[in-house]
């Protein structure tokens, strides 16, 4: 089934179900729905804040620059790609990759302020120390903890081939 192409709209910062905290020049975002945390570097944070759904990419870069974060259009587009992947902006459709993008990425990587660092937040069991062996073998193989087994931490509670339950391997 062919889906209709999205109509490109100016980028809009997503705010629903998010907890946002500013720490100095960085912004921490916690997505309550997807249980993902994001840390936006200073420039990325300025660009995200400038996404009001009315400004095009160039205008977003300009607005971010007025707020003290000196970024140009290509750098803003790169950050918007990352924010889009993190599901922190909607409406933005990136332009097709151009041959200079690799060089741009290299430049951007050098500028830490453009970073959008994301991670999935752990469940209580994932953040715990280990999984007892007896509990591991009772887990269905789709829910293996992947943690070290308490009795023998060199082994991990993982899926065992096609078996229906996990095991310490």
């Amino acid at each position, binding site marked *: 089934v062919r889906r209709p192409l999205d109509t490109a709209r100016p980028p809009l910062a997503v705010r629903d179900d998010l907890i946002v905290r500013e720490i100095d020049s960085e912004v921490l975002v916690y997505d309550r729905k997807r249980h993902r945390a994001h840390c936006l570097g200073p420039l990325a944070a300025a660009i995200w804040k400038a996404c009001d759904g009315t400004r095009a990419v160039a205008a977003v870069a300009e607005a971010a620059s007025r707020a003290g974060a000196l970024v140009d259009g290509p750098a803003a587009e790169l950050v918007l790609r990352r924010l889009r992947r993190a599901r922190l902006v909607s409406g933005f459709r990136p332009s097709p990759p151009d041959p200079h993008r690799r060089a741009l990425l290299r430049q951007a990587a050098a500028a830490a302020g453009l970073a959008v*660092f994301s991670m999935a937040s752990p469940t209580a069991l994932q953040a715990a120390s280990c999984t007892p062996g007896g509990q591991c073998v009772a887990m269905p193989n789709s829910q293996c903890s992947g943690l070290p087994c308490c*009795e023998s931490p060199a082994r991990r509670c993982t899926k065992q081939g096609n078996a229906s339950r996990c095991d310490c391997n």
Partner: protein
Amino acid sequence: MGSGHFYDATVRTDLPLPSVRVPPTPCLDKLNRVSWTAGVYVRAYGCTIGIRTTDAAVLPAIVQHLPTGARTSAPRGTDHLVSWVVGSDADSRLRRFHILYAGAQRLVRTFDPNEVLRVLAHHVELAVAEMAVGRLFLHAGVVGWKGRALVIPGPSHSGKSSLVAALLAQGATYYSDEYAVLDSSGQVRPYPRALHLRDRGELGEAVPAATLGARTGRTPLPVGLVAMARYHEGSTWEPRALSPGRAVMALLANSISIRKKPARTLATLECVARGAVTLEGTRGEAPATAARLLETLERIPEVTP
């Protein structure tokens, strides 16, 4: 099982059976129809866990396996319910499994009652860490040094306990080798369970800090240094400093309750990140790293809240 061969401790077996304050589900309904005969109420860090069983003889063993800071309490509403269907003795002709449930979810099914106790102890400790009221549990080792805390977050098998033991050997005060218990202002409280040191990857005996000649902390401490130190053979401790935002992310990866209480967790971690220096890197042998960490902590100026 009815022989009561585990322990001789006396525990009241006539308390009303625990139940849980959640809407019943078909699975829980089915479990509720089992012939429960005794129960115990466990209270720790503001939350209550009910444990019920089909055989009162196992209650003393359950009480002996309660986690640090937990104690039995009078009957009250419970936040979480654990159920143990007691099986048969290994030498009986008809063998029945021991089955342990958390809510309606099966945690373990085994013929070995000691395995049930291990899983039960681990589960209750984790449940308390997740549901604690007004406290945030981070998976981390903690020691005190000259009025400030050094926190070493990290996953299991990353060498937290051995680094904590090396720090104690250099005169630090013991707070925990498993959880950093933070209050809402970001100060760390003691969680002084016995250290679980490993010998060639296998879990050894639990060793009380006093056996290592260390003092155990009693008062809350502000966090001065957070060291994300992973053990890597042959490495030397050459860490890089993390920005406050990245420090919160690193701490968050070790937080037990982030999914249950994200706003409060982030606020507490922010307090820690603002007041402390966070370093990340790989480390070599524990004694050399411990000495460098203590030197670093001494050089960090105190932050006034």
